[in-house]
């Protein structure tokens, strides 16, 4: 249990997927303009991360490794994730229209979100067990949500701020992201000490 808590909180706070591992930056910069879309995207990312981990971990451990096909990992994972996202979208459209309306439009964009493929590969390279992997995926998704939530607040202010002409737009947004990332350094060492 202790290990699971460490994995969960490390993924959310210390090794935040967006601000410290730089996964999913495109969508981080893209959808953080508006809090509502940011939360929709986050919900979709959490869902797809959990589902893809639940699928890719068994494929790697029970199918690719015994057959000695470990080198096909990248190819298989990306195709599995692409197919999975399509399937979730279709199932959701038929069975859960309200949820589809909230998250649906974000789903197709997630296939090329590196955070999703990243978490699937990280689980294997860190040789996590299945439970560890699922917790890591949940933590990764929640960490993504947290950073998007915080950053969309920061951006509301930044977009209104009066900055030098050359810094307007993307440059100042990136510098703001840099400061948000600095704040996450406050969590260094927290997790190890909290659950000792």
């Amino acid at each position, binding site marked *: 249990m202790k290990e699971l808590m460490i994995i969960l909180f490390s993924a959310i706070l210390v090794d935040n997927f967006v601000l410290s591992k730089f996964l999913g930056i495109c969508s981080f910069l893209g*959808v953080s303009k508006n809090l509502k879309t940011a939360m929709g995207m986050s919900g979709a990312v959490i869902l797809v991360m959990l589902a893809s981990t639940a699928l890719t971990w068994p494929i790697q451990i029970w199918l690719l490794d015994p057959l000695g096909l470990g080198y096909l990992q990248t190819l298989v994972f990306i195709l599995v994730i692409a197919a999975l996202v399509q399937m979730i979208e279709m199932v959701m459209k038929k069975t859960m229209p309200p949820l589809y309306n909230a998250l649906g439009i974000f789903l*197709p*964009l997630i296939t090329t979100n*590196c955070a999703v493929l990243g978490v699937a590969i990280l689980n294997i390279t860190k040789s996590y067990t299945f439970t560890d992997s699922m917790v890591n995926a949940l933590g990764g998704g929640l960490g993504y949500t947290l950073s998007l939530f915080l950053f969309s607040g920061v951006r509301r202010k930044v977009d209104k701020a009066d900055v030098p002409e*050359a810094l307007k737009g993307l440059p100042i947004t990136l510098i703001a992201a840099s400061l948000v990332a600095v704040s996450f350094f406050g969590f260094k060492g927290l997790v190890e000490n909290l659950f000792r």
Partner: protein
Amino acid sequence: MKEDVSDKTYLNPDERLAEQKKKNAPLHVLLSGILFENPALVLVLGTCPLLAITTTAQNAFFMGLAVIFVQVGSEVIISFVRKIIPDKVRIPAFITVIAGFVTIVQMLVSAYLPALNESLGIYIPLIVVNCIVLARAEAYASKKTVISSFFDGLGMGIGYAVALFLMGAVREILGNGTFFGMGLPLFGTVIEPMMFFILPPGGFFVYGIWICLTQIFMKRLNRFLGKKAPEKPEIGGCEACGGCSGCGGSQGGTV
């Protein structure tokens, strides 16, 4: 014609393509990839590895080579088979081709440069989901001849590699006081290394500054060439990653 190219159409690959139709000369294609449409500094694509692995100039250099290889290889192959692939399954087909090239890189790196494999880590397999590669496959290679796709891939790859190298050099010199692992005069002794630049926040900061400098430079350059300056890259929705018009959207999505 130039005057119609507003902000929105400038970001749209199809419009850009129409504008480019006349300018298919290899040199022009190559130069536009490296300079005018630099994928990292002007189009702002493929940001994840750009921020993550540029802690040293060496990492950035090898990552650049890997991206050039994948970009050129996948564009040439996709352009070669573009008439055989049915329209509906083109995105999965493109991804498969790209993933194939990435796997080749992974195997080569882990066989010949194991130390590099350690430091680049998961960012090598993540080239698969790099927006630039898929975006160019969709917007360029799937419509153009093999030869112009080759030059487009080369230009885009080199443009991305240059951006990686600029990031890596600045971060290593300021953050560690070295360049390609070698000591430098002044840096490291008189000017103390600033850890900030090696750490993740430094990545965002240096990238922001480089984009800012690029915008100033492009403005000057365009004035010098007597062109109308293109609009600033606008970040909004997933359009920020031009690939999405091709990848996510056309996969049956509603965006």
